[in-house]
C-alpha cells in the first residue's frame, strides 16, 4: 500500500488534529492575549499603587521627624532655659534614632546648643551660622531639606532645618542619618522578590534594601527608568533593568518637597507571573487538547478506517478467490451497510460460482457419459462392422469354397458309385482276374471306398461349415413374424436339452426358468433367433459339462425380462466361465475354445450377426472365469427395420 504517503487513518487523524489544534490554538491565543493585557494592566496598576505607597512611607518617615522636631519650634522655645532646651533635644534624640545631631540656632544665626550622639554636648558656642544654608533655608522655607550628602563618601545624611515660631525666629537643625530609612525600605514589600529604592533628583541612591549599595554612594542616573523619572518624562511604570541587571517592571513616585524619587521594582517574571500562569495554563490546555484530539483522532480514524480496511482486506481476499470471505463489520453506518452489501455480493458470487461448478460438473458428467456411450457405441459399431465384414468375408470365402467343395463332394460320391460299378464290373469279369489279384483289388477298392467315405463325410462337414458361413450373408431371407418370445425360448430350450441328452445320455443339469409373462410377442425372425438361442444353450451345456469339480451341481438360468421398449433374454450358467484373454474374441468368426473338429467357431459370431444386424438388438456377455457366464440378449420391441435403421 505504498501508492500514497499517508494512510487514510493517518490523514483522518491529522485532519482531526489540525482542526482541533487550530481551534485550540486560536482560542488559546485569544485568551492568552486578553489574559496578557489584563495581567499587564493589573501589574502596572499594582506597581503604580506600590510606588505611591512606598513614596508615602518614605514621606511619612520624614514627616515623623518633622513632627518630632516640631516640639522644639514652639514660639516660647527661645525664652525657655537652656537646661530645658537641652532636655528637649535629649528627648528628641531619644525619640528619633535617625537624628544623629541636633542644633539650635537663635534668630541671629548663632549656634546656641548642639547635641550629638558621638560628640560631647556644646552649649552656647555662639558660632555664627547666619550664613549657613541650613539656617537660611529654614528661615526662607519654614522647613528646609538639605541635599543628601554622603559622609566619608559613604553614609547618607540630610539636614532637616525647621524655623521656630514667633518673631525673628531661630531654627532647629537636625542632621538625619538616612541609613535608618533602610528599615522603612525593607518593610516595603513588593511582591515576593521586588524591592523599593529612593534616589535624589541627581539619581544618587539614598535608600535601598541592600545597604551596601547606598553606602557605596551609587549613582543610578544611568538607569533608563531613573533617568526618565528625573526628566519627568515617560510612563510612571516601565519595563527596565534593575540595579542588579534583572528584567524588572519599574514604577516610581516622586516626593516633591524632598526632591526624592521612590522606585519600586519587581522582577518582570514575578510581576507577570499571572500572565505566565495563564500562558502555561493555556499551553497545558492546548497540549491536553492536542493529546485528546490525537487520541480521539486515532480512535476515530481507527473506527472509521478499521471497517474500511476490513472491507479492503475482504475485497482483496475475495479478489484472490477466497469466496468464503465475509467482512465482520459491526458498524451500523454507511460502512456497515457497505460491508453488508459486500457480504451479500460475496454470497451471490459464491452461489453463482457453486451453481456454475455444479453445472459444469453436471455437464462434464453428462459429457463423460455421452462420451462413454459414444465410445461404447463406437466400439460396438467397430465390433459390429468388424464382425459384419468378417461375416461377409466368411460368406465370400464360403461362396468361393462352396463350388470346389461341391466338386469334391460330388466327385467323391461319384467315385464311390464308380467303385461300386467297378466291383460290379469285376464281378462280371469274375474269373478273368486271378483270385489273389481279385482279393488284392477288393482290398484296394475297400480302402478307396473308405477314403472316399471319409472325403464325403468331411466334405459334408466342410459343406456344413460353408453353409454356416453362408448364413452370414443369408439375411432377410427367412420370414419375419410376431412370435411369443417365451414360447420360443421354451421350445428352443427343450430342443437343446434333448439334443444334449441325445449326445450325452448321462448329462444332467438343473434348469431354472424365469419367464416374464409380460414379455409378450416380438416381431422377429423365429428361425434365426432359434439358432441364437440353441447356440447359447448349447454353449451353456458345454460349459457345465466342461466343469469337472466334485459336488458340482450344473445349473442353468434362463429368464426373460420385459422392459418398456425391449425384452431381455438372459442365459446364465455356472460353468467354466470365459477367461479374460478370450472374452474380447468370442464374437469373432472361427474363434473357438473347443478342440478342433468339435466346433466351427461360428456360433457366437452368427448369433451376434443375427441379434445385432438382423434384429437391431444387443448381445452382451458377463463372466467370472471358473464361476459363471451370463449372456444377455436384448431385443427391441419396435420393428426390426426401424432398429436396423437406427
Amino acid at each position: 500500500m505504498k501508492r500514497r504517503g499517508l494512510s487514510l487513518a493517518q490523514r483522518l487523524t491529522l485532519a482531526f488534529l489540525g482542526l482541533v489544534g487550530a481551534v485550540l490554538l486560536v482560542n488559546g491565543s485569544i485568551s492568552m492575549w486578553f489574559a496578557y493585557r489584563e495581567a499587564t494592566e493589573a501589574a502596572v496598576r499594582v506597581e503604580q499603587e506600590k510606588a505611591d505607597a512606598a513614596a508615602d512611607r518614605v514621606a511619612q518617615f520624614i514627616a515623623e521627624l518633622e513632627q518630632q522636631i516640631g516640639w522644639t519650634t514652639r514660639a516660647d522655645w527661645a525664652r525657655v532655659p537652656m537646661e530645658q532646651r537641652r532636655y528637649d533635644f535629649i528627648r528628641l534624640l531619644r525619640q528619633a534614632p535617625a537624628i544623629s545631631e541636633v542644633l539650635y540656632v537663635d534668630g541671629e544665626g548663632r549656634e546656641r546648643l548642639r547635641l550629638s550622639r558621638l560628640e560631647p554636648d556644646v552649649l552656647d558656642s555662639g558660632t555664627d551660622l547666619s550664613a549657613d544654608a541650613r539656617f537660611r533655608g529654614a528661615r526662607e522655607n519654614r522647613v528646609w531639606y538639605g541635599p543628601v550628602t554622603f559622609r566619608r563618601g559613604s553614609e547618607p545624611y540630610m539636614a532637616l532645618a525647621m524655623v521656630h515660631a514667633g518673631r525673628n525666629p531661630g531654627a532647629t537643625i537636625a542632621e538625619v542619618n538616612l541609613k535608618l530609612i533602610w528599615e522603612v525600605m525593607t518593610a516595603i514589600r513588593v511582591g515576593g522578590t521586588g524591592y523599593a529604592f529612593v534616589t535624589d533628583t541627581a539619581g544618587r541612591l539614598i535608600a535601598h534594601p541592600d545597604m551596601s549599595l547606598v553606602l557605596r554612594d551609587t549613582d543610578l542616573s544611568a538607569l533608563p527608568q531613573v533617568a526618565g523619572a528625573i526628566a519627568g518624562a515617560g510612563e510612571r511604570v516601565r519595563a527596565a533593568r534593575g540595579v542588579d541587571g534583572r528584567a524588572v517592571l519599574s514604577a516610581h513616585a516622586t516626593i516633591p518637597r524632598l526632591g526624592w524619587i521612590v522606585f519600586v521594582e519587581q522582577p518582570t517574571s514575578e510581576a507577570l507571573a499571572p500572565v505566565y500562569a495563564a500562558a502555561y495554563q493555556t499551553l497545558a490546555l492546548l497540549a491536553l487538547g492536542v493529546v485528546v484530539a490525537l487520541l480521539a483522532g486515532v480512535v476515530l480514524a481507527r473506527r472509521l478506517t478499521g471497517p474500511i480496511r476490513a472491507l479492503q482486506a475482504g475485497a482483496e481476499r475475495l479478489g484472490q478467490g477466497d469466496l468464503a470471505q465475509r467482512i465482520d463489520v459491526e458498524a451500523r453506518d454507511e460502512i456497515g451497510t457497505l460491508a453488508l452489501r459486500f457480504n451479500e455480493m460475496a454470497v451471490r458470487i459464491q452461489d453463482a460460482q457453486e451453481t456454475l461448478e455444479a453445472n459444469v460438473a453436471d455437464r462434464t458428467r453428462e459429457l463423460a457419459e455421452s462420451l462413454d456411450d459414444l465410445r461404447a457405441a463406437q466400439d460396438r459399431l467397430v465390433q459390429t462392422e468388424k464382425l459384419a465384414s468378417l461375416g461377409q468375408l466368411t460368406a465370400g470365402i464360403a461362396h468361393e469354397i462352396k463350388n470346389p467343395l461341391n466338386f469334391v463332394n460330388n466327385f467323391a460320391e461319384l467315385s464311390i458309385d464308380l467303385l461300386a460299378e467297378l466291383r460290379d464290373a469285376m464281378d462280371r469279369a469274375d474269373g478273368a482276374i486271378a483270385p489273389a489279384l481279385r482279393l488284392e483289388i477288393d482290398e484296394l477298392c475297400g480302402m478307396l471306398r473308405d477314403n472316399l467315405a471319409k472325403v464325403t463325410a468331411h466334405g459334408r462337414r466342410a459343406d456344413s461349415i460353408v453353409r454356416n458361413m453362408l448364413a452370414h450373408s443369408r439375411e432377410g431371407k427367412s420370414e419375419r413374424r410376431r412370435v411369443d418370445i417365451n414360447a420360443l425360448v421354451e421350445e428352443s430350450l427343450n430342443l437343446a436339452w434333448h439334443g444334449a441328452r441325445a449326445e450325452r445320455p448321462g448329462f444332467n443339469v438343473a434348469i431354472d426358468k424365469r419367464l416374464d409373462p409380460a414379455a409378450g410377442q416380438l416381431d422377429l425372425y423365429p428361425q434365426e433367433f432359434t439358432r441364437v438361442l440353441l447356440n447359447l444353450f448349447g454353449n451353456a451345456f458345454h460349459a457345465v459339462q466342461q466343469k469337472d469339480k466334485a459336488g458340482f451341481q450344473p445349473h442353468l438360468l434362463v429368464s426373460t425380462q420385459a422392459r418398456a421398449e425391449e425384452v431381455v433374454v438372459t442365459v446364465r450358467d455356472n460353468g467354466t466361465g470365459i477367461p479374460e484373454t478370450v472374452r474380447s474374441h468370442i464374437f469373432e468368426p472361427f474363434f473357438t475354445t473347443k478342440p478342433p473338429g468339435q466346433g466351427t467357431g461360428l456360433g457366437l459370431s452368427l448369433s451376434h450377426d443375427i441379434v445385432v444386424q438382423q434384429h437391431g438388438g444387443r448381445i452382451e456377455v458377463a463372466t467370472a472365469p471358473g464361476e459363471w457366464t451370463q449372456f444377455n440378449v436384448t431385443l427391441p420391441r419396435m420393428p426390426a427395420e426401424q432398429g436396423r435403421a437406427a
Partner: protein
Amino acid sequence: MIGRRAALALPLAAAARDADAQPRRPRRIGYVHSVSIGPANNATRIIGGHLRQRGFVDAQTLFLRAGRGDPAVLERAIEELLAHDPGALIAVGAPAVFAAARLGRGVPVVAVDLETDPVAAGLAASDARPGGHVTGLFLDQPSLAGKWLDLLLELAPATRHVVFLWDPATGPHQRDVAVVQAGRRRLTAAVVNPFDTDALPSALARAARGTVGVVMLTAPGITEHLGRIGGMLQAMGVPGVTFLANFVGSGFAMGYGVDQPHYFARAAVLAERILDGEDPGAIPIERPTRFRFAIDLRATGTLGLAVPHTLLALADEVLE
C-alpha cells in the same frame, strides 16, 4: 494560585540570579577574637548565635578561635583557622583584625573593630569601596570619650579625677583623645589596663572618695571582666561609665555605646554575603547607626547619687 505563581516565578528568578552569580566561596567561617571566645563574650555570643541560626555548625563550618590578648596565640589561632580553608574570616578587635588582614592569605576578612579608622590604618581604600579583602564594622569614634566624661560629670558633678580603663592592644588614639578631653574638663586622668587586676584598685585608691570616676574605653574581650571590675567599683563607691550599653548591671552606673546586638549581627550578614560570592572589596564598611544609653539606678543608689532627669530622658534602658 499564589503557590503556583511562586513556583513559576522562582525558577525564572533563580535563573536570572544564577546568570550573574560570582563563584561561591567555601561555606566555612573562621571566627577569631582578639581575646576570648568564652560564653560571656559579647561579640562571640551575638555573631556566633547568628551564624548558628543560619545553619553554620561548630567545628564543621564554623571555627572559633581566641587570641587571649597574646599576639603569638592570635597568629597561631589564625593559622589554625586558615587550615580549615574558610570562605571568610570574622575578626573581632583591632589585634585580630590586623593579624587576620596580615596573615589571611587573601581570605576575606570581616572586621569588628570599635577603635580603628580602617582608611587611616590602610585596611581599606575608602568606606564606600574598601577595595581590599578587609571590610566590616568599624567605629573609630574617640570623641565618644568626651561623651562618656560628660555623662560621668552629669551623674557625679563632684568628680575631679577620672581613671580610664584602656586596653593597649586597641592603640593609643582613643586613650590620647580621652586624656585630652579630661583635661578640657579640668579633670586629672589616670590610665589603667582593665586586664590588669591590681592596677585599678591602686589607681582608685589614690584619689579621694567621691571625686573619682571610671570611664571604660572600648576593649574587646572585656565583658568577662566586667563583673570583677564592676564589683570593685561598687565596693569602692566609684561611679563608672562603660561603652557597653548592654552590660549595665554589673556594677557600672552607666553604659553608652553602640547597640551591639544590632550592630554585630551585621558582621554575620556581611560574612555570608562574601561566602555567596560578593567581592569584599565592594562591600562598604558599615558604621553603627544606633546607640544605646543605659543607667543602673541600683548602682547610682548605692553611690548615693541623684540621677538628673536629663539622664533619665536620654536612657534607652533604666535598671531599677
